[in-house]
């Protein structure tokens, strides 16, 4: 880089290439643009009178891709009724409605821009963007405007919209959330009211109260507590019933027992005007438990929405080859035996076999290997993988549920269900406690019934109430909710309840390399030129040769080349895994690995200033070597510190990667990781983890790729990177949204602290119960004392847990 002032693209912030002529007048000033894509988008925004977007935005927009006419053409397919059937609903006034996933939303101004731009179109009835989920809902009058016009309008301002079937999960989530909110609100409002009356009643007990008024207040408390128990707490009863049906004593059994019995006894006391009422404890307890579950549900849904986006791996359209010529159809309409044409750069729509052409296929989806594999006629290809070099015709062999992609998803579902969970242990302990308690209560009640029948019922009730496992059952969820909240502020999303508990006990931490410890994309580290060629010129030649390739190496050169690149290559031919060759101004050029250019270059130049472990790419013409490029995958910031901090905590750190030995050991040496495995396929990774687990180790896996998904699901606790694939995130227990490795260390520390708090809570609850138990059995504890004791013990537990949410810095 030179010290010259470099102009940045006003739209996307990328440097503007010299001599660029892309300019748009914004706010009476000519602004430079980096590419025709950004120019077109900025022009569309200004022409729409939406210039204030540039005043309000708080993030730089993503670089706009020039709208390719072919893609716009493809959008019109979304108007086909057969395709619309899956995601469009029509209401009685013939207004159509669809849900869209919007890509490219980075700040609130994007939402404003989209809403203003689309709502202004004639025929659009409503267009609403949800900023939290990046989903949009559009309603339109099909007689005035078509869905493809709306999608094109969104594309014209630089965003990408995919229609999706909101009917399935979205509606379920929405209903679940709405129901949970309603239950929570009724429990909360009810608890406040009952508590107010309870204070009056306690005061009345102390200083004397008119009997009629006391009775009235008890009836009012009963009236308020009834909907709380029968509506808000219903989910506890139903899940307790489910547990009992399969002969298990889960945590919901004591919870519903406590709520049910305390409510029944209080109602009895109210009706017969005798004894004590516990409506305050019942409602407060219900409210606290519901609040914890509501927060947990929110995190789970967020992760689930990511899984929904997995559908995008498969293209929506395919080109079917028929006798009358090619036609474009929806992928869902493909049948076994159909022939489809796949252009370079497109995803393969279904599993099948190649019948025409040869090309290389990027199977990162399955193997995690980012280097493409060469495939030719009669070889099998997998739906969702990407065709890279040249057009193919494929005969479809499997569709829908039969495909490999669908089976990965099934594998994942199964692994998640079979996940070993320590959380279940706590439930089992509680179950024994409950069983023991029930037996004890019946024994005590029987004894009192024989000796003093009048007292028996109230002693049994106060024994049940005082030993109510409320504190015990709140001990874990309260601490976990508080810890989850403070981790979320750090950018670590916890999606499953057991994650923190397990993370605290982890002994082995297994990292994937690419995208986890490293940034996951190749970058040009340095280059060396030979003969009298200029650096930029050699990059331009390389870019011309690589133009149109999806190979990760190609992207490096395409980013570095000048725009526009005046050099263009003819007769370009790629050899998979080797390199490319082509004619530029009549001269034959080759770009590739040492073996590929060996015919021109007999020996590698001795003066190579090669950075450690870099991949070398040679550029030669028909006579001599022109340049060598060194590409490398950068380490993430503070990767070394994080790995060392984890080791200092006594964890064993592993590096398990699909890459070759050299690449793996280079990274491992830099980070000081002794345990490494290289050239691992997903099934090998699975067996590494299974071996560790068999030795009784508790394994945490950190990964990011689709190929990591089954491994992530198999580890006791798994963490996906925020920039990783959606499938990986959906199968992980935690997501490192910040992609900042030190936060992983913080998460482990926080997990340890929260487990400590849980232990303190459980110890307190047990000590309290053991003290209260004999006293209550002997009849020394009046029911009102039991009620205060129960509330107080729960409050202590909750307050102790709240200490976790206070300090984020550890």
């Amino acid at each position, binding site marked *: 880089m030179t010290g010259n002032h470099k102009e940045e693209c006003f739209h996307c912030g990328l440097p503007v290439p010299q001599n660029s002529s892309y300019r748009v007048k914004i706010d*009476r000033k000519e602004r430079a643009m980096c590419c025709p894509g950004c120019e077109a988008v900025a022009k569309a925004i*200004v*022409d729409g*009178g939406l*210039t*204030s977007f540039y005043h*309000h935005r708080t993030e730089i927009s993503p670089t706009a891709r020039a709208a390719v006419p072919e893609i716009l053409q493809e959008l019109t397919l979304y108007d086909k009724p057969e395709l619309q059937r899956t995601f469009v609903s029509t209401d009685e006034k013939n207004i159509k409605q669809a849900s869209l996933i919007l890509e490219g939303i980075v700040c*609130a*101004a994007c*939402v*404003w821009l989209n809403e*203003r731009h689309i709502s202004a179109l004639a025929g659009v009835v409503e267009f609403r*963007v*949800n*900023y*939290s*989920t990046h989903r949009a809902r559009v309603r339109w009058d099909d007689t005035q405007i078509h869905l493809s016009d709306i999608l094109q309008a969104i594309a014209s301002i630089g965003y990408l919209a995919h229609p999706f079937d909101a009917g399935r999960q979205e509606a379920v989530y*929405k209903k679940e*959330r*709405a129901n949970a*909110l*309603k239950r929570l*609100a*009724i429990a909360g*409002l*009810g608890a406040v*009211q009952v508590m107010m*009356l309870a204070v009056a009643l306690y005061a009345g007990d102390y200083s004397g109260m*008119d009997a009629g*008024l006391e009775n*009235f*207040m008890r009836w*009012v408390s009963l*009236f*308020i507590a009834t909907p709380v128990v029968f509506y808000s707490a219903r989910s506890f009863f139903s899940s307790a019933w489910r547990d009992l049906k399969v002969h298990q004593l889960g945590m919901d059994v004591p919870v519903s027992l406590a709520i049910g019995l305390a409510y029944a006894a209080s109602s009895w006391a109210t009706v017969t005007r005798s004894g004590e009422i516990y409506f305050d404890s019942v409602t407060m307890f219900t409210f606290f438990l519901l609040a914890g579950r509501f927060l947990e549900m929110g995190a789970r849904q967020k992760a689930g929405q990511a899984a929904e986006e997995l559908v995008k791996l498969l293209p929506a359209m395919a080109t079917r080859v028929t006798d009358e010529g090619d036609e474009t159809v929806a992928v869902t309409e493909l049948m076994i035996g159909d022939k489809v044409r796949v252009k370079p750069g497109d995803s393969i729509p279904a599993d099948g076999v190649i019948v025409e052409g040869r090309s290389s296929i990027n199977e990162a989806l399955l193997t995690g290997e980012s280097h493409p594999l060469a495939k030719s006629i009669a070889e099998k290809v997998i739906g969702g993988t990407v065709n890279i070099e040249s057009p193919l015709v494929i005969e479809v062999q499997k569709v829908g549920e039969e495909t490999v992609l669908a089976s990965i998803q099934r594998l994942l579902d199964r692994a998640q269900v079979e996940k070993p969970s320590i959380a279940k242990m706590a439930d089992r302990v509680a179950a024994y406690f409950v069983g023991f308690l029930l037996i004890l209560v019946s024994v005590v009640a029987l004894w009192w019934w024989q000796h003093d029948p009048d007292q028996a019922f109230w002693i049994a009730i106060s024994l049940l109430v005082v030993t109510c496992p409320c504190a015990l059952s709140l001990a874990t969820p309260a601490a976990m909710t508080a810890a989850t909240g403070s981790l979320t502020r750090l950018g670590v999303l916890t999606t499953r309840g057991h994650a923190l508990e397990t993370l605290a006990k982890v002994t082995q931490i297994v990292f994937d390399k690419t995208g986890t410890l490293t940034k996951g994309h190749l970058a040009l580290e340095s280059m060396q030129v030979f003969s009298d060629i200029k650096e930029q010129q050699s990059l331009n030649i390389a870019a011309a040769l690589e133009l149109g390739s999806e190979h990760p190496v190609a992207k490096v050169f395409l980013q570095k080349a000048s725009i526009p690149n005046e050099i263009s290559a003819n007769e370009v031919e790629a050899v998979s895994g080797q390199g490319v060759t082509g004619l530029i101004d009549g001269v034959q050029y080759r770009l590739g690995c040492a073996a590929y250019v060996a015919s021109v270059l007999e020996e590698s130049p001795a003066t190579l200033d090669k950075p450690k472990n870099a991949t070398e790419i040679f550029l030669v013409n028909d006579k001599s070597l022109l340049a060598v490029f060194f590409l490398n995958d950068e380490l993430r910031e503070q990767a070394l510190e994080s790995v060392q901090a984890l080791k200092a905590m006594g964890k064993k750190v592993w590096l398990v990667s699909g890459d070759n030995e050299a690449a793996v050991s280079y990274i491992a040496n830099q980070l000081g990781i002794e345990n490494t495995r290289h050239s691992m396929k997903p099934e090998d990774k699975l067996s590494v983890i299974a071996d560790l687990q068999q030795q009784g180790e508790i394994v945490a896996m950190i990964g990011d790729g689709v190929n990591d998904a089954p491994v992530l699901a198999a580890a006791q606790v798994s963490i996906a990177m925020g920039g990783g694939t959606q499938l990986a995130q959906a199968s992980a227990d935690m997501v490192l949204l910040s992609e900042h490795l030190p936060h992983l260390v913080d998460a482990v520390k926080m997990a340890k602290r929260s487990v400590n708090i849980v232990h303190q809570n459980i110890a307190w609850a047990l000590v309290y119960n053991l003290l209260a138990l004999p006293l209550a059995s002997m009849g020394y504890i009046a029911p009102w004392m039991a009620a205060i004791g129960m509330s107080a013990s729960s409050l202590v537990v909750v307050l102790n847990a709240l200490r976790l949410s206070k300090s984020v810095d550890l």
Partner: protein
Amino acid sequence: MEILYLLIPLGLLVLGVAIWGFIWAVKTGQFDDMEGPAYRILMDDDDIRIPTRNPENTADKELKEK
């Protein structure tokens, strides 16, 4: 203290209104997006009413069309 016989039922009535209001809010989607609306009020459509010196301003044109 007889007034309590009136005040407590009145309190219950208010409680009922609060619950009804909350359920209405959930049903009409007031809790669907907890972040977006906070920004939405900041980016309003009032820019076309702010007079500008530049007659070519697109915003003015828009105003004329309306």
